[in-house]
Protein backbone atom coordinates (compact mmCIF):
# COMPACT_ATOMS: atom_id res chain seq x y z
CA UNK A 1 0.00 0.00 0.00
CA UNK A 2 2.79 2.39 0.71
CA UNK A 3 4.79 3.53 -2.22
CA UNK A 4 8.07 3.14 -0.45
CA UNK A 5 8.88 -0.44 -1.32
CA UNK A 6 12.03 0.87 -2.92
CA UNK A 7 13.40 2.11 0.36
CA UNK A 8 12.37 -0.97 2.34
CA UNK A 9 15.52 -2.50 3.82
CA UNK A 10 16.65 -5.63 2.07
CA UNK A 11 15.10 -8.55 3.94
CA UNK A 12 17.43 -10.96 5.63
CA UNK A 13 16.17 -13.72 3.38
CA UNK A 14 17.85 -12.06 0.47
CA UNK A 15 21.01 -11.88 2.51
CA UNK A 16 21.04 -15.66 2.69
CA UNK A 17 20.01 -15.91 -0.93
CA UNK A 18 22.95 -13.78 -1.99
CA UNK A 19 25.41 -16.15 -0.37
CA UNK A 20 25.61 -18.17 -3.55
CA UNK A 21 26.13 -15.07 -5.64
CA UNK A 22 28.76 -13.95 -3.16
CA UNK A 23 31.53 -14.35 -5.69
CA UNK A 24 29.62 -12.22 -8.14
CA UNK A 25 29.26 -9.47 -5.55
CA UNK A 26 32.88 -9.79 -4.50
CA UNK A 27 33.98 -8.93 -8.02
CA UNK A 28 32.69 -5.45 -7.35
CA UNK A 29 34.74 -5.39 -4.14
CA UNK A 30 38.23 -5.79 -5.59
CA UNK A 31 39.91 -5.63 -2.18
CA UNK A 32 37.70 -8.34 -0.74
CA UNK A 33 38.29 -10.44 -3.83
CA UNK A 34 42.07 -10.15 -3.47
CA UNK A 35 41.75 -11.06 0.22
CA UNK A 36 39.68 -14.10 -0.60
CA UNK A 37 42.19 -15.20 -3.24
CA UNK A 38 44.98 -14.83 -0.67
CA UNK A 39 43.14 -17.00 1.83
CA UNK A 40 42.31 -19.63 -0.77
CA UNK A 41 45.99 -19.64 -1.77
CA UNK A 42 47.01 -19.97 1.87
CA UNK A 43 44.69 -22.92 2.42
CA UNK A 44 46.06 -24.61 -0.72
CA UNK A 45 49.61 -23.98 0.45
CA UNK A 46 48.78 -25.46 3.87
CA UNK A 47 47.24 -28.58 2.34
CA UNK A 48 49.94 -29.04 -0.30
CA UNK A 49 52.87 -28.21 1.99
CA UNK A 50 54.53 -31.65 1.73
CA UNK A 51 54.60 -31.37 -2.04
CA UNK A 52 55.35 -27.72 -2.68
CA UNK A 53 57.88 -26.95 0.05
CA UNK A 54 61.31 -27.09 -1.62
CA UNK A 55 63.02 -28.44 1.52
CA UNK A 56 62.02 -30.20 4.69
CA UNK A 57 61.17 -27.59 7.36
CA UNK A 58 63.44 -29.27 9.86
CA UNK A 59 66.37 -30.09 7.57
CA UNK A 60 69.36 -28.39 9.13
CA UNK A 61 72.43 -27.55 7.11
CA UNK A 62 75.20 -26.01 9.14
CA UNK A 63 77.02 -24.99 5.97
CA UNK A 64 74.14 -22.76 4.92
CA UNK A 65 73.45 -20.93 8.17
CA UNK A 66 71.86 -17.43 7.85
CA UNK A 67 72.10 -17.21 4.08
CA UNK A 68 70.40 -14.16 2.50
CA UNK A 69 67.63 -14.75 -0.05
CA UNK A 70 69.04 -16.46 -3.15
CA UNK A 71 67.94 -18.68 -6.02
CA UNK A 72 68.41 -21.80 -3.89
CA UNK A 73 66.69 -20.29 -0.82
CA UNK A 74 64.17 -17.68 -1.99
CA UNK A 75 63.71 -16.30 1.49
CA UNK A 76 67.10 -17.16 2.87
CA UNK A 77 67.92 -19.53 5.73
CA UNK A 78 67.81 -19.29 9.51
CA UNK A 79 70.38 -19.85 12.22
CA UNK A 80 70.27 -23.63 11.71
CA UNK A 81 70.47 -23.37 7.94
CA UNK A 82 66.79 -24.29 7.51
CA UNK A 83 65.02 -22.93 4.45
CA UNK A 84 62.71 -20.11 5.60
CA UNK A 85 60.30 -20.43 2.66
CA UNK A 86 59.75 -24.12 3.45
CA UNK A 87 59.20 -23.31 7.11
CA UNK A 88 56.69 -20.58 6.21
CA UNK A 89 54.82 -23.04 3.96
CA UNK A 90 54.63 -25.62 6.75
CA UNK A 91 53.85 -22.82 9.19
CA UNK A 92 50.77 -21.98 7.12
CA UNK A 93 49.48 -25.40 8.09
CA UNK A 94 49.87 -24.61 11.80
CA UNK A 95 48.27 -21.18 11.43
CA UNK A 96 45.33 -22.55 9.45
CA UNK A 97 44.83 -25.39 11.90
CA UNK A 98 44.79 -22.93 14.80
CA UNK A 99 42.46 -20.48 13.09
CA UNK A 100 40.01 -23.12 11.91
CA UNK A 101 40.01 -25.04 15.21
CA UNK A 102 39.39 -21.91 17.24
CA UNK A 103 36.62 -20.83 14.87
CA UNK A 104 35.03 -24.28 14.97
CA UNK A 105 35.02 -24.20 18.78
CA UNK A 106 34.07 -20.57 19.27
CA UNK A 107 31.32 -20.27 16.63
CA UNK A 108 28.90 -22.88 18.02
CA UNK A 109 29.61 -21.98 21.66
CA UNK A 110 29.11 -18.26 21.11
CA UNK A 111 25.99 -18.85 19.02
CA UNK A 112 24.49 -21.24 21.57
CA UNK A 113 25.13 -19.00 24.57
CA UNK A 114 24.06 -15.82 22.79
CA UNK A 115 20.91 -17.23 21.27
CA UNK A 116 19.86 -18.89 24.52
CA UNK A 117 20.40 -15.69 26.49
CA UNK A 118 18.58 -13.55 23.94
CA UNK A 119 15.66 -15.92 23.49
CA UNK A 120 14.86 -16.70 27.11
CA UNK A 121 15.76 -13.29 28.50
CA UNK A 122 15.25 -12.62 32.22
CA UNK A 123 17.41 -14.56 34.61
CA UNK A 124 18.95 -16.88 32.02
CA UNK A 125 20.03 -13.82 30.08
CA UNK A 126 21.39 -12.07 33.16
CA UNK A 127 23.50 -15.05 34.25
CA UNK A 128 24.86 -15.88 30.81
CA UNK A 129 25.64 -12.29 29.95
CA UNK A 130 27.42 -11.62 33.27
CA UNK A 131 29.66 -14.63 32.58
CA UNK A 132 30.27 -13.26 29.10
CA UNK A 133 31.09 -9.83 30.51
CA UNK A 134 33.54 -11.31 32.99
CA UNK A 135 35.42 -13.19 30.29
CA UNK A 136 35.22 -10.17 28.01
CA UNK A 137 36.77 -7.93 30.64
CA UNK A 138 40.01 -9.93 30.65
CA UNK A 139 42.53 -8.85 28.05
CA UNK A 140 42.43 -11.88 25.78
CA UNK A 141 46.18 -12.27 25.36
CA UNK A 142 46.79 -12.18 29.11
CA UNK A 143 44.08 -14.77 29.74
CA UNK A 144 45.45 -16.95 26.97
CA UNK A 145 48.91 -16.53 28.49
CA UNK A 146 47.67 -17.62 31.89
CA UNK A 147 45.99 -20.69 30.44
CA UNK A 148 48.95 -21.60 28.30
CA UNK A 149 51.23 -21.19 31.30
CA UNK A 150 48.96 -23.27 33.53
CA UNK A 151 48.31 -26.09 31.07
CA UNK A 152 51.81 -26.21 29.64
CA UNK A 153 52.92 -24.73 26.34
CA UNK A 154 51.88 -26.34 23.08
CA UNK A 155 49.70 -25.89 20.04
CA UNK A 156 46.70 -27.66 21.65
CA UNK A 157 46.83 -25.45 24.73
CA UNK A 158 47.15 -22.37 22.56
CA UNK A 159 44.00 -23.36 20.67
CA UNK A 160 42.06 -23.93 23.90
CA UNK A 161 43.41 -20.74 25.44
CA UNK A 162 42.47 -18.58 22.45
CA UNK A 163 39.03 -20.22 22.21
CA UNK A 164 38.34 -19.40 25.85
CA UNK A 165 38.76 -15.72 25.18
CA UNK A 166 37.26 -15.50 21.70
CA UNK A 167 33.65 -16.58 22.27
CA UNK A 168 32.21 -13.61 24.24
CA UNK A 169 31.98 -11.18 21.30
CA UNK A 170 30.23 -13.87 19.26
CA UNK A 171 27.80 -14.54 22.11
CA UNK A 172 26.99 -10.86 22.46
CA UNK A 173 26.34 -10.49 18.78
CA UNK A 174 24.15 -13.60 18.63
CA UNK A 175 22.20 -12.35 21.65
CA UNK A 176 21.54 -9.00 20.03
CA UNK A 177 20.23 -10.71 16.90
CA UNK A 178 18.14 -13.17 18.91
CA UNK A 179 16.55 -10.30 20.85
CA UNK A 180 15.27 -8.86 17.58
CA UNK A 181 14.18 -12.16 16.08
CA UNK A 182 12.29 -13.41 19.13
CA UNK A 183 9.88 -10.48 18.87
CA UNK A 184 9.05 -10.99 15.20
CA UNK A 185 5.62 -12.01 14.01
CA UNK A 186 6.84 -15.31 12.58
CA UNK A 187 8.09 -16.37 15.99
CA UNK A 188 4.78 -15.25 17.51
CA UNK A 189 2.96 -17.35 14.90
CA UNK A 190 5.17 -20.33 15.74
CA UNK A 191 4.32 -19.93 19.43
CA UNK A 192 0.66 -20.02 18.47
CA UNK A 193 1.02 -23.38 16.80
CA UNK A 194 2.82 -24.72 19.83
CA UNK A 195 6.41 -24.91 18.60
CA UNK A 196 8.66 -25.93 21.53
CA UNK A 197 11.43 -23.71 22.85
CA UNK A 198 14.08 -26.04 21.46
CA UNK A 199 12.44 -25.96 18.05
CA UNK A 200 12.13 -22.18 18.08
CA UNK A 201 15.76 -21.79 19.09
CA UNK A 202 17.29 -24.17 16.59
CA UNK A 203 15.00 -23.85 13.59
CA UNK A 204 13.70 -20.30 13.83
CA UNK A 205 16.07 -18.07 15.73
CA UNK A 206 19.58 -19.49 15.31
CA UNK A 207 19.43 -19.55 11.48
CA UNK A 208 18.68 -15.81 11.49
CA UNK A 209 21.75 -15.09 13.62
CA UNK A 210 24.17 -17.08 11.49
CA UNK A 211 25.02 -14.48 8.79
CA UNK A 212 26.26 -11.86 11.24
CA UNK A 213 28.03 -14.52 13.29
CA UNK A 214 29.82 -15.73 10.15
CA UNK A 215 30.93 -12.18 9.39
CA UNK A 216 32.16 -11.72 12.93
CA UNK A 217 33.98 -15.06 12.89
CA UNK A 218 35.79 -14.11 9.70
CA UNK A 219 36.89 -10.81 11.19
CA UNK A 220 37.91 -12.72 14.32
CA UNK A 221 40.22 -14.93 12.28
CA UNK A 222 42.57 -11.98 11.88
CA UNK A 223 42.73 -11.56 15.65
CA UNK A 224 43.22 -15.28 16.14
CA UNK A 225 46.14 -15.27 13.71
CA UNK A 226 47.74 -12.46 15.67
CA UNK A 227 47.06 -13.98 19.10
CA UNK A 228 48.42 -17.35 17.98
CA UNK A 229 51.55 -15.69 16.65
CA UNK A 230 51.93 -13.70 19.87
CA UNK A 231 51.69 -16.87 21.95
CA UNK A 232 54.24 -18.52 19.66
CA UNK A 233 56.49 -15.49 19.96
CA UNK A 234 56.35 -15.72 23.75
CA UNK A 235 57.14 -19.43 23.58
CA UNK A 236 53.72 -20.51 24.80
CA UNK A 237 52.29 -21.75 21.50
CA UNK A 238 53.63 -24.37 19.14
CA UNK A 239 57.01 -25.54 20.36
CA UNK A 240 60.30 -25.68 18.44
CA UNK A 241 61.18 -27.17 16.08
CA UNK A 242 57.62 -26.67 14.77
CA UNK A 243 57.72 -23.88 12.16
CA UNK A 244 55.23 -21.57 13.85
CA UNK A 245 55.36 -18.04 12.44
CA UNK A 246 55.39 -16.23 15.80
CA UNK A 247 58.09 -18.53 17.15
CA UNK A 248 60.09 -17.92 13.97
CA UNK A 249 60.01 -14.16 14.53
CA UNK A 250 61.03 -14.71 18.12
CA UNK A 251 64.02 -16.75 17.01
CA UNK A 252 64.93 -14.29 14.26
CA UNK A 253 64.85 -11.34 16.62
CA UNK A 254 68.49 -11.92 17.59
CA UNK A 255 69.66 -11.44 14.00
CA UNK A 256 67.30 -8.59 13.21
CA UNK A 257 69.94 -6.03 12.28
CA UNK A 258 72.30 -8.13 10.19
CA UNK A 259 70.07 -10.93 8.91
CA UNK A 260 66.71 -9.12 8.67
CA UNK A 261 65.04 -11.82 6.53
CA UNK A 262 64.89 -14.34 9.37
CA UNK A 263 62.34 -12.25 11.30
CA UNK A 264 60.84 -10.16 8.51
CA UNK A 265 59.67 -13.04 6.28
CA UNK A 266 57.38 -14.65 8.91
CA UNK A 267 56.34 -11.12 9.91
CA UNK A 268 55.04 -10.52 6.40
CA UNK A 269 53.27 -13.87 6.43
CA UNK A 270 51.39 -12.89 9.62
CA UNK A 271 50.66 -9.39 8.33
CA UNK A 272 49.21 -10.52 5.01
CA UNK A 273 47.20 -13.36 6.54
CA UNK A 274 45.49 -11.21 9.14
CA UNK A 275 44.95 -8.42 6.63
CA UNK A 276 43.34 -10.89 4.23
CA UNK A 277 40.95 -12.16 6.90
CA UNK A 278 40.01 -8.59 7.81
CA UNK A 279 39.35 -7.57 4.25
CA UNK A 280 37.28 -10.68 3.52
CA UNK A 281 35.31 -10.14 6.71
CA UNK A 282 34.50 -6.58 5.69
CA UNK A 283 33.45 -7.68 2.22
CA UNK A 284 31.31 -10.46 3.69
CA UNK A 285 29.58 -7.94 5.89
CA UNK A 286 28.78 -5.75 2.91
CA UNK A 287 27.27 -8.72 1.12
CA UNK A 288 25.56 -10.53 4.01
CA UNK A 289 24.54 -7.87 6.44
CA UNK A 290 21.66 -5.75 5.16
CA UNK A 291 22.38 -2.99 7.64
CA UNK A 292 25.67 -2.23 5.99
CA UNK A 293 24.56 -2.16 2.36
CA UNK A 294 26.00 0.71 0.43
CA UNK A 295 23.62 2.95 -1.42
Amino acid at each position, binding site marked *: *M*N*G*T*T*LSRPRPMANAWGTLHSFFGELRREPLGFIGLMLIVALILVAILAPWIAPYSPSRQSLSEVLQPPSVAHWMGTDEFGRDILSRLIWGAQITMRTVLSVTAIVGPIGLLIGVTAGYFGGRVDAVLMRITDIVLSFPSLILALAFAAALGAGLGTAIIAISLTAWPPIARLARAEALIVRNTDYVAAARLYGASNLRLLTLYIAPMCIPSVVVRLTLNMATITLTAASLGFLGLGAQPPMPEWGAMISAGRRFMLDQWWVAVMPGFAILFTSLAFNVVGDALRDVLDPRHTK*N
Partner: protein
Amino acid sequence: MTDTKEILTVQNLDVTFARSAMKAVAGVSLSLGQGKVGIVGESGSGKSTLGRAIMRLLPPSATVTASKLTFDGNPLLSQSEREMRALRGNRMSLIMQDPRYSLNPVLPIGRQVAETAILHKGLSKSAARAVAAEMLDRVRIKDVARVMESYPHQISGGMGQRVMIAAMLLSRPRLVIADEPTSALDVSVRGEVLELLNELVTADGSSLLLISHDIRMVASFCDRIVVMYKGRIVEELSRLSDARHPYTLGLIAAMPDARHPVHRLRVPDRATFDATERSGSPA
Protein backbone atom coordinates in the same frame (compact mmCIF):
# COMPACT_ATOMS: atom_id res chain seq x y z
CA MET B 1 -3.98 24.02 -17.69
CA THR B 2 -4.54 26.49 -14.89
CA ASP B 3 -4.94 30.20 -15.30
CA THR B 4 -2.51 31.05 -12.54
CA LYS B 5 1.21 31.06 -13.12
CA GLU B 6 2.72 27.66 -13.52
CA ILE B 7 5.05 26.65 -10.73
CA LEU B 8 6.13 23.27 -11.96
CA THR B 9 6.05 22.00 -15.51
CA VAL B 10 6.82 18.39 -16.32
CA GLN B 11 6.78 17.13 -19.87
CA ASN B 12 7.47 13.59 -20.97
CA LEU B 13 9.35 12.56 -17.86
CA ASP B 14 10.93 9.09 -17.96
CA VAL B 15 12.75 7.32 -15.14
CA THR B 16 14.72 4.15 -15.74
CA PHE B 17 16.63 2.24 -13.08
CA ALA B 18 19.99 0.82 -14.08
CA ARG B 19 19.24 -2.88 -14.01
CA SER B 20 15.67 -2.92 -15.21
CA ALA B 21 14.44 -2.56 -18.74
CA MET B 22 11.05 -1.28 -17.53
CA LYS B 23 10.53 2.40 -17.11
CA ALA B 24 9.56 3.19 -13.52
CA VAL B 25 7.98 6.40 -14.78
CA ALA B 26 7.07 6.71 -18.46
CA GLY B 27 6.11 9.82 -20.37
CA VAL B 28 4.56 11.72 -17.49
CA SER B 29 3.42 15.26 -18.16
CA LEU B 30 2.05 17.48 -15.44
CA SER B 31 1.72 21.13 -14.74
CA LEU B 32 1.20 22.58 -11.33
CA GLY B 33 0.02 26.02 -10.49
CA GLN B 34 -1.11 27.28 -7.14
CA GLY B 35 -3.20 24.65 -5.36
CA LYS B 36 -3.29 21.03 -4.36
CA VAL B 37 -2.76 18.17 -6.74
CA GLY B 38 -2.91 14.56 -5.58
CA ILE B 39 -1.19 11.62 -7.20
CA VAL B 40 -2.77 8.28 -6.40
CA GLY B 41 -1.74 4.81 -7.40
CA GLU B 42 -0.85 1.47 -5.95
CA SER B 43 2.63 0.38 -4.96
CA GLY B 44 4.84 0.15 -8.01
CA SER B 45 2.83 2.75 -9.90
CA GLY B 46 5.82 5.08 -9.89
CA LYS B 47 4.15 7.82 -7.86
CA SER B 48 6.93 8.08 -5.27
CA THR B 49 9.60 7.81 -7.94
CA LEU B 50 7.98 10.69 -9.78
CA GLY B 51 8.08 12.88 -6.66
CA ARG B 52 11.71 12.08 -6.03
CA ALA B 53 12.60 12.57 -9.69
CA ILE B 54 11.20 16.10 -9.55
CA MET B 55 13.26 16.79 -6.42
CA ARG B 56 16.24 15.10 -8.11
CA LEU B 57 16.56 12.83 -5.08
CA LEU B 58 16.80 9.50 -6.89
CA PRO B 59 19.91 7.34 -6.45
CA PRO B 60 22.59 7.58 -9.14
CA SER B 61 21.41 4.29 -10.65
CA ALA B 62 18.29 6.08 -11.91
CA THR B 63 18.26 7.86 -15.24
CA VAL B 64 15.82 10.75 -15.50
CA THR B 65 14.96 12.27 -18.87
CA ALA B 66 12.29 14.79 -19.75
CA SER B 67 11.59 17.06 -22.66
CA LYS B 68 10.85 19.74 -20.08
CA LEU B 69 11.20 19.91 -16.30
CA THR B 70 11.07 23.44 -15.00
CA PHE B 71 10.37 24.76 -11.54
CA ASP B 72 9.74 28.48 -11.24
CA GLY B 73 11.65 29.01 -14.47
CA ASN B 74 14.61 26.85 -13.43
CA PRO B 75 15.34 23.87 -15.67
CA LEU B 76 15.80 21.28 -12.92
CA LEU B 77 17.61 18.66 -14.96
CA SER B 78 20.50 20.95 -15.80
CA GLN B 79 20.98 22.28 -12.27
CA SER B 80 24.11 21.20 -10.47
CA GLU B 81 23.77 19.24 -7.26
CA ARG B 82 24.82 22.34 -5.41
CA GLU B 83 22.12 24.48 -6.97
CA MET B 84 19.60 21.72 -6.29
CA ARG B 85 20.59 21.67 -2.65
CA ALA B 86 19.91 25.39 -2.50
CA LEU B 87 16.47 24.85 -4.05
CA ARG B 88 15.51 21.89 -1.88
CA GLY B 89 14.29 22.83 1.55
CA ASN B 90 14.21 26.40 0.40
CA ARG B 91 11.90 26.88 -2.54
CA MET B 92 10.88 23.25 -2.86
CA SER B 93 10.32 20.88 0.06
CA LEU B 94 9.71 17.20 0.52
CA ILE B 95 7.60 15.76 3.33
CA MET B 96 8.03 12.05 3.80
CA GLN B 97 6.00 9.33 5.48
CA ASP B 98 8.11 9.28 8.61
CA PRO B 99 9.26 12.82 9.42
CA ARG B 100 11.70 11.52 11.97
CA TYR B 101 13.99 10.49 9.12
CA SER B 102 13.96 13.98 7.64
CA LEU B 103 14.96 15.64 10.88
CA ASN B 104 18.49 15.61 12.19
CA PRO B 105 18.48 12.99 14.97
CA VAL B 106 21.16 14.65 17.10
CA LEU B 107 19.78 18.19 17.23
CA PRO B 108 16.85 19.33 19.38
CA ILE B 109 13.69 20.24 17.45
CA GLY B 110 13.77 23.89 18.47
CA ARG B 111 17.24 24.40 17.10
CA GLN B 112 16.38 22.81 13.79
CA VAL B 113 13.39 25.07 13.28
CA ALA B 114 15.36 28.09 14.48
CA GLU B 115 18.11 27.17 12.02
CA THR B 116 15.58 27.57 9.21
CA ALA B 117 14.61 30.98 10.52
CA ILE B 118 18.24 32.08 10.63
CA LEU B 119 18.79 30.78 7.12
CA HIS B 120 15.71 32.33 5.55
CA LYS B 121 15.09 35.44 7.53
CA GLY B 122 18.61 36.32 8.58
CA LEU B 123 17.53 36.59 12.20
CA SER B 124 19.76 36.53 15.24
CA LYS B 125 19.87 33.36 17.30
CA SER B 126 17.51 34.53 20.04
CA ALA B 127 15.07 36.12 17.60
CA ALA B 128 15.13 32.91 15.55
CA ARG B 129 14.22 30.87 18.63
CA ALA B 130 11.30 33.14 19.32
CA VAL B 131 10.10 32.83 15.72
CA ALA B 132 10.55 29.05 15.86
CA ALA B 133 8.42 28.88 19.02
CA GLU B 134 5.78 31.00 17.34
CA MET B 135 5.70 28.71 14.32
CA LEU B 136 5.48 25.56 16.43
CA ASP B 137 2.59 27.18 18.23
CA ARG B 138 0.98 28.00 14.90
CA VAL B 139 1.02 24.31 13.91
CA ARG B 140 -0.86 23.68 17.16
CA ILE B 141 1.86 22.01 19.14
CA LYS B 142 0.98 22.09 22.79
CA ASP B 143 3.78 22.56 25.29
CA VAL B 144 6.06 24.26 22.77
CA ALA B 145 8.88 24.77 25.26
CA ARG B 146 9.19 21.05 25.95
CA VAL B 147 8.96 20.06 22.28
CA MET B 148 11.70 22.53 21.35
CA GLU B 149 14.08 20.76 23.70
CA SER B 150 13.08 17.29 22.47
CA TYR B 151 15.02 15.22 19.98
CA PRO B 152 13.28 13.76 16.90
CA HIS B 153 13.06 10.23 18.38
CA GLN B 154 11.19 11.56 21.39
CA ILE B 155 8.22 12.92 19.47
CA SER B 156 5.33 11.17 17.75
CA GLY B 157 4.90 10.91 13.99
CA GLY B 158 2.08 13.46 13.95
CA MET B 159 4.17 15.89 15.97
CA GLY B 160 7.07 15.34 13.56
CA GLN B 161 4.93 16.23 10.56
CA ARG B 162 3.84 19.40 12.33
CA VAL B 163 7.45 20.30 13.02
CA MET B 164 8.25 19.79 9.33
CA ILE B 165 5.34 22.03 8.39
CA ALA B 166 6.44 24.63 10.96
CA ALA B 167 9.87 24.75 9.34
CA MET B 168 8.20 25.14 5.96
CA LEU B 169 6.08 28.03 7.17
CA LEU B 170 9.40 29.78 7.69
CA SER B 171 11.09 28.84 4.44
CA ARG B 172 7.86 29.37 2.45
CA PRO B 173 8.55 26.91 -0.34
CA ARG B 174 6.86 27.45 -3.69
CA LEU B 175 6.40 23.71 -4.12
CA VAL B 176 5.75 21.09 -1.45
CA ILE B 177 5.91 17.44 -2.41
CA ALA B 178 4.28 15.34 0.31
CA ASP B 179 4.86 11.61 -0.07
CA GLU B 180 2.34 9.70 2.04
CA PRO B 181 2.55 12.39 4.74
CA THR B 182 -0.30 10.95 6.77
CA SER B 183 -0.15 7.19 6.27
CA ALA B 184 1.93 6.62 9.41
CA LEU B 185 -0.45 8.76 11.44
CA ASP B 186 -3.58 7.99 13.38
CA VAL B 187 -6.86 8.87 11.76
CA SER B 188 -7.63 11.72 14.14
CA VAL B 189 -4.21 13.35 13.69
CA ARG B 190 -4.41 12.91 9.92
CA GLY B 191 -7.10 15.58 9.57
CA GLU B 192 -5.10 18.17 11.48
CA VAL B 193 -1.96 17.58 9.44
CA LEU B 194 -3.91 17.93 6.20
CA GLU B 195 -5.50 21.11 7.52
CA LEU B 196 -2.03 22.55 8.28
CA LEU B 197 -0.77 21.60 4.83
CA ASN B 198 -3.79 23.35 3.40
CA GLU B 199 -3.05 26.51 5.40
CA LEU B 200 0.57 26.41 4.29
CA VAL B 201 -0.41 26.20 0.64
CA THR B 202 -3.21 28.75 0.65
CA ALA B 203 -1.37 31.30 2.78
CA ASP B 204 1.60 31.50 0.44
CA GLY B 205 -0.09 30.66 -2.84
CA SER B 206 2.25 27.77 -3.34
CA SER B 207 1.74 24.40 -4.88
CA LEU B 208 1.29 21.04 -3.18
CA LEU B 209 1.84 17.67 -4.78
CA LEU B 210 0.30 15.08 -2.47
CA ILE B 211 1.36 11.52 -3.20
CA SER B 212 -0.83 8.88 -1.59
CA HIS B 213 -2.38 5.47 -1.98
CA ASP B 214 -5.55 6.71 -0.30
CA ILE B 215 -7.96 7.73 -3.04
CA ARG B 216 -10.60 8.85 -0.58
CA MET B 217 -8.26 11.20 1.20
CA VAL B 218 -6.84 12.66 -2.00
CA ALA B 219 -10.31 13.11 -3.47
CA SER B 220 -11.54 15.04 -0.47
CA PHE B 221 -8.40 17.13 -0.04
CA CYS B 222 -7.04 17.95 -3.49
CA ASP B 223 -8.30 20.12 -6.31
CA ARG B 224 -7.07 17.69 -8.94
CA ILE B 225 -6.50 13.93 -8.82
CA VAL B 226 -3.87 12.32 -11.00
CA VAL B 227 -4.16 8.54 -11.23
CA MET B 228 -0.98 6.62 -12.02
CA TYR B 229 -0.63 3.02 -13.06
CA LYS B 230 2.57 1.26 -14.12
CA GLY B 231 4.54 4.48 -14.39
CA ARG B 232 1.95 6.28 -16.55
CA ILE B 233 -0.74 8.79 -15.84
CA VAL B 234 -3.97 7.07 -16.75
CA GLU B 235 -6.36 9.83 -15.83
CA GLU B 236 -6.59 13.36 -14.44
CA LEU B 237 -9.79 14.21 -12.60
CA SER B 238 -11.25 17.00 -10.58
CA ARG B 239 -13.83 14.71 -8.96
CA LEU B 240 -13.84 10.95 -8.43
CA SER B 241 -17.30 10.70 -9.98
CA ASP B 242 -15.79 11.82 -13.31
CA ALA B 243 -13.58 8.73 -13.44
CA ARG B 244 -13.84 6.95 -16.79
CA HIS B 245 -10.68 4.88 -17.01
CA PRO B 246 -11.25 1.20 -16.11
CA TYR B 247 -8.28 1.24 -13.76
CA THR B 248 -9.63 4.13 -11.71
CA LEU B 249 -13.10 2.62 -11.74
CA GLY B 250 -11.61 -0.72 -10.65
CA LEU B 251 -9.79 0.87 -7.73
CA ILE B 252 -12.91 2.67 -6.58
CA ALA B 253 -14.98 -0.49 -6.82
CA ALA B 254 -12.40 -2.46 -4.84
CA MET B 255 -12.79 -0.23 -1.81
CA PRO B 256 -15.34 -1.29 0.76
CA ASP B 257 -18.06 1.33 1.11
CA ALA B 258 -20.02 1.33 4.35
CA ARG B 259 -23.02 2.91 2.69
CA HIS B 260 -23.31 0.28 0.00
CA PRO B 261 -22.57 -2.99 1.76
CA VAL B 262 -21.75 -5.93 -0.50
CA HIS B 263 -20.93 -9.47 0.43
CA ARG B 264 -17.91 -9.74 -1.85
CA LEU B 265 -15.80 -6.85 -3.07
CA ARG B 266 -15.09 -6.37 -6.74
CA VAL B 267 -11.53 -7.25 -7.54
CA PRO B 268 -10.17 -5.17 -10.40
CA ASP B 269 -9.20 -7.23 -13.39
CA ARG B 270 -5.78 -6.03 -14.41
CA ALA B 271 -5.91 -7.80 -17.75
CA THR B 272 -8.81 -5.60 -18.90
CA PHE B 273 -7.19 -2.27 -18.26
CA ASP B 274 -3.82 -3.48 -19.44
CA ALA B 275 -5.62 -4.21 -22.71
CA THR B 276 -7.34 -0.83 -22.87
CA GLU B 277 -4.04 0.79 -22.10
CA ARG B 278 -2.45 -0.85 -25.12
CA SER B 279 -5.28 0.01 -27.48
CA GLY B 280 -4.97 3.64 -26.42
CA SER B 281 -7.71 4.92 -24.17
CA PRO B 282 -8.67 8.41 -23.03
CA ALA B 283 -5.84 9.21 -20.68
